[in-house]
């Protein structure tokens, strides 16, 4: 009995005082209350300022409490953890608030009528009308751009990873890097200059060409990374069976990486779906339905949003339509992402028994 008591009192080098698990929550709540209190007292009325003060208090408070109870090393560890949490919240808050605002303002006029009718003769300042023409335009332009950009991008990446050696490969890599940095308006101007040479009027396919230029480097980059992830052993296993290189690429390398490649393409599609500048220059916008991307001006969702804001002269109806179109565009991109994830999961190499 007495030995047990002695053992208990003996100082253990492995066990140290530690804060209970609910401590971070308490510190967070405390710093939030304190942050709001300080802000009220100082007469600050921006909620962003309240949040920032609370965040700083949270990090400092964590360090203070932990340093007191647990020691400096654990305190540093806790500060790092709380910094990660604060950074996470800073990143998520704008995203959530953006989606929230878009949904709240967008659902007002978003209905089947809105999705299935064009603006037609409805003036931009009046209520009514819809975005059918813009959806058609967006789908056709983005679809055609993907048909051009994705194959070229994937084939370029295959060349770079599987065949590329020496100067040509280095040059291609360099120009792909340069292309990644091209602002969308420059891609639009490039196609516009061609259009002016041939004296053409705006049409949907011209926009597709500019979008394809923007899409290509993104596809090349992501596909390249995915192909590099395929273990060399698989290529060698296939070659050692007497399979030619091109069939090895087609039947072993690509199926192994198809999930990642699809995700990359979908992300590139999502990126170009929101481009406004080249579409403004090359497709021009059109309140009527134009199903033919090869002739005549077309509409597109991002362009429609821009024009509803710009041409409405402060009309509430136009603002509502712009928000609803934004919501549609976000939903469209989100659905694409979900589809990409689905394909990636479906095609991923199987590991189960």
């Amino acid at each position: 009995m007495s030995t047990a008591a002695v053992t208990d009192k003996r100082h253990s080098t492995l066990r140290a005082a530690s804060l209970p698990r609910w401590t971070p929550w308490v510190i967070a709540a405390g710093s939030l209350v304190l942050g709001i209190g300080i802000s009220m007292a100082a007469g600050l009325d921006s909620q962003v300022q309240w949040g920032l003060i609370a965040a700083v208090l949270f990090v400092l408070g964590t360090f203070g409490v932990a340093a007191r109870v647990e020691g400096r090393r654990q305190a540093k560890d806790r500060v790092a953890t709380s910094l990660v949490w604060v950074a996470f919240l800073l990143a998520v808050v704008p995203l959530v608030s953006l989606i929230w605002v878009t949904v709240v303002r967008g659902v007002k006029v978003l209905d089947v009528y809105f999705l299935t009718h064009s603006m037609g003769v409805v003036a931009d300042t009046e209520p009514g009308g819809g975005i059918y023409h813009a959806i058609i335009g967006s789908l056709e332009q983005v679809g055609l751009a993907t048909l051009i950009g994705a194959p070229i991008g994937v084939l370029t990446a295959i060349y770079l990873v599987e065949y590329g050696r020496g100067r040509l490969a280095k040059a291609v890599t360099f120009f792909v890097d340069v292309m990644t940095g091209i602002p969308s308006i420059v891609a639009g101007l490039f196609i516009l200059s061609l259009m002016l040479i041939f004296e053409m009027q705006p049409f949907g396919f011209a926009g597709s060409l500019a979008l394809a230029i923007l899409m290509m480097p993104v596809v090349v980059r992501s596909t390249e990374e995915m192909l590099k992830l395929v273990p060399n052993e698989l290529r060698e296993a296939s070659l050692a069976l007497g399979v030619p290189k091109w069939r090895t690429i087609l039947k072993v390398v690509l199926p192994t990486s198809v999930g990642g490649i699809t995700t990359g393409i979908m992300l590139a599609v999502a990126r170009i779906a929101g481009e406004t500048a080249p579409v403004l220059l090359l497709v021009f916008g059109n309140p009527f339905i134009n199903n033919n991307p090869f002739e005549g001006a077309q509409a597109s969702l991002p362009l429609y949003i821009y024009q509803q804001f710009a041409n409405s002269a402060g009309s509430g109806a136009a603002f509502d339509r712009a928000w609803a179109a934004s919501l549609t565009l976000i939903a469209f991109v989100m659905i694409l992402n979900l589809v990409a994830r689905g394909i990636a999961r479906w095609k991923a190499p199987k590991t189960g028994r």
Partner: protein
Amino acid sequence: MAKRIDVSGLTAFYGSHKAIEDISMTVEPRSVTAFIGPSGCGKSTFLRTLNRMHEVTPGGRVEGKVLLDDEDLYGAGIDPVSVRREVGMVFQRPNPFPTMSIFDNVAAGLRLNGNYKKSELNDIVEKSLKGANLWNEVKDRLNKPGSGLSGGQQQRLCIARAIAVEPDVLLMDEPCSALDPISTLAIEDLIGELKERFTIVIVTHNMQQAARVSDRTAFFNLAAVGQPGRLIEIDDTERIFSNPSVQATEDYISGRFG
């Protein structure tokens, strides 16, 4: 089936680095030849020159002759793809194709090379899996992914995949180094059966394994790090392990270095 390999004056490079120099040997058909030697002495490189896999590595280059029943693998007009169909290979780490089922893995070599009827494929896959002593373990789950098997089973799957295309020669690059003793035993037994039909060359770091499975043993060594590897001697396995003619071989086998 089961061809003889005659190598003369073979030198292999990685870029400007000479990995192996002036190797000459004969590998008899329907026998197991083991390559032993310290790491980095060029055993695997030499093995890979025997089915033209060496040149797959960027900068890989070969000088000299490899005769497969009197036909030079490095002669003019020889298609490396056809060479690899006749000289199959099993790698150090089991590498089944992750996107394919067990059946598709075994059928891969045939399917990727031409058109086969489903019934033909069924027969070949069954025969190959039986040949690799794997049939009883996987016959009920041929449609499951190959990566779900244990390491030893995966390696036997890779052997089944290699013998499904009916090569003349089977090269094995340390096929048991990633496996436990029981799986190793299974594969060694398998090598004993396969030598009835194929010419087998095996690289191993395990000298007991070389003594157990091989008919002839070749000892490779390099003078110093950075120097090219050379063939020191090749002889019947019994002689190499009892009374080698070169002192370095005896030193290596008796554990005095390496």
